[in-house]
């Protein structure tokens, strides 16, 4: 539930703003000049804000589509990402957003058309290659869809341009709109999955593993290409059993012929983000395991990291062909 809505003065009369105002008609509405007045200000506590985040409606002015980091790929060479929203309704303890942002408020950029234009523009610079666009970088791609309608807006762009691929990265079961429209072969709905005990301990407010698997099943039946993202792998004492059970459970249900890709990745975090996360949650078990810092990145101690990745990779490759596997680095 949103109790407070901040709206940039410039977009007060935007049709999407009016629709959202109607939806949250009991929320207190406060006008602001620019979202950064709230979002980027020092002296705010992400953890406390997360208990009751406000929604900030804003207009993005530049950098709608950005090149994805080099290692970010599910089969293409031209990879981009975009974020129509910042922050997420879920509260996963390992999430980098809590280390990167000062505020836990949600920011929604309502000028979707500018994102669409920039997608087309970035693709036209690489007219021959397939281009891949990742949408779930700074938010969950589907969790807020009933409020934002962004996916509904952006899918037709990809429908008209089969050379462009879209990844919707999610833990959400908000799939009704996807089920109600014809599947797109160039739109991968990629679910982040963790063992049940990790979901319970570290993925607050997310749908259970069973519900996510159920959503995957329904989407596959409708023809949507599915991605599976086991990222980050979380080290714990019984990780072999728990990850082996997770893979068994998932691949017992998955239709391999409609599986687009699978990724695995260890927990890794820029040092500065990790320090911020520890400051927010000083007595968090996950941040208390033995970690190492290498080249500015924090990860589990080397032998633990190696053991976990090796085990999970070997187990995973019993279920899927190698050409569907994309390790995260």
């Amino acid at each position: 539930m949103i109790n407070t809505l901040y709206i940039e003065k410039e977009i007060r009369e935007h049709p999407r703003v009016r629709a959202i105002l109607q939806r949250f008609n009991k929320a207190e509405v406060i006008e602001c000049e620019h979202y950064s007045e709230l979002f980027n200000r020092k002296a705010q506590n992400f953890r406390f804000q997360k208990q009751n985040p406000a929604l900030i409606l804003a207009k993005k002015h530049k950098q709608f589509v950005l090149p994805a980091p080099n290692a970010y790929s599910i089969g293409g060479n031209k990879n981009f990402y975009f974020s129509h929203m910042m922050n997420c309704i879920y509260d996963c303890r390992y999430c980098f957003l809590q280390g990167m942002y000062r505020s836990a408020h949600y920011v929604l950029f309502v000028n979707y058309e500018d994102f669409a234009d920039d997608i087309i523009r970035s693709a036209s610079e690489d007219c021959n290659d397939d281009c891949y666009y990742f949408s779930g970088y700074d938010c969950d791609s589907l969790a807020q869809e009933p409020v934002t309608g962004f996916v509904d807006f952006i899918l037709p762009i990809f429908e008209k341009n089969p050379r462009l691929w879209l990844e919707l990265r999610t833990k959400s079961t908000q799939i009704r709109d996807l089920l109600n429209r014809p599947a797109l072969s160039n739109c991968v709905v990629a679910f982040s999955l963790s063992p049940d005990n990790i979901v319970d301990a570290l993925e607050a407010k997310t749908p259970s593993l069973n519900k996510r698997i159920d959503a995957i099943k329904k989407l596959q039946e409708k023809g949507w290409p599915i991605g599976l993202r086991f990222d980050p792998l979380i080290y714990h004492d019984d990780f072999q059993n728990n990850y082996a059970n997770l893979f068994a459970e998932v691949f017992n249900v998955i239709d391999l012929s409609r599986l687009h890709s699978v990724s695995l990745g260890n927990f890794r975090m820029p040092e500065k983000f990790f320090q911020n996360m520890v400051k927010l949650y000083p007595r968090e078990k996950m941040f208390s395991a033995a970690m190492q810092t290498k080249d500015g990145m924090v990860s589990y101690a080397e032998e633990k990291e190696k053991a976990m990745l090796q085990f999970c990779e070997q187990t995973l490759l019993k279920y899927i062909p190698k050409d569907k596997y994309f390790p995260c680095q």
Partner: protein
Amino acid sequence: MIYIVCALHCEAKPLIDNYKLSLEQDAVFPIFSNEQIKIIVAGIGKTSTAAAMAYLYARNQELPYCAWLNVGIAGHKNLPLGSLVNVNKISDSSMNWYPVRPENSKQLGAELKTVDAPVEHYQDEALVDMEASAFMATALRFSPVELLQVLKVISDNEENHIDNINKKQVQQLIEQNLKEISETINWLQMQTNSFVEIYANSELYQQCINQWHFSHYQQKQLQRLLQRWQALNENPQFSQVQALSNAKQVLSFIENRVNQMPVEY
């Protein structure tokens, strides 16, 4: 600790009486306090407000995670006299501040503009005062925005000019709203308690600091190691380290122990 900032003594008086606060001796500004609350009477205007808050903070800086509340009167075009407003936006020149609204608050929320001198005409829907922007700018240097609140009681509007109001009336206006002001103070107290619970050092930390000499860097190491030790489901006791002879040994003992502890979910 809750720090309450008022411009005038007549704004502070109902709170001083209600919470049975005593005047602190040898203070540059009038400060009234008990174990949980300190009220400072800052004087009118931004400079006085900032100076008083800085003074109060410096005088009590050993207290972490203190909350700040600005209570005072303000003008508005047409809100009735005596209305209590929980200010949700404060503007001054080109700067804006946004205090956090307590969840489920039923208090009226509105924007406020801080000005340099009393105004003759109320131009828009915002309240007008002479202190709140300085309050926010200063308080944010000491505490996060989640520990700040600004409450204003309407003392003048287009039909009741500010020149017609006297100290007694101001005191009455605040008194009328004492219940709601106390609710905000209670909320701030709860917020402060939560901060302390999460972020304050453990008793064991204090015991170690008292027992051995830790350099500043070692104090940080100790703090983090103890947090990890507690997080990994053990209830560490001073007796486990008591026999060690110096800070280095203590840090080494705890680090070895923590790194070998199982991580279970």
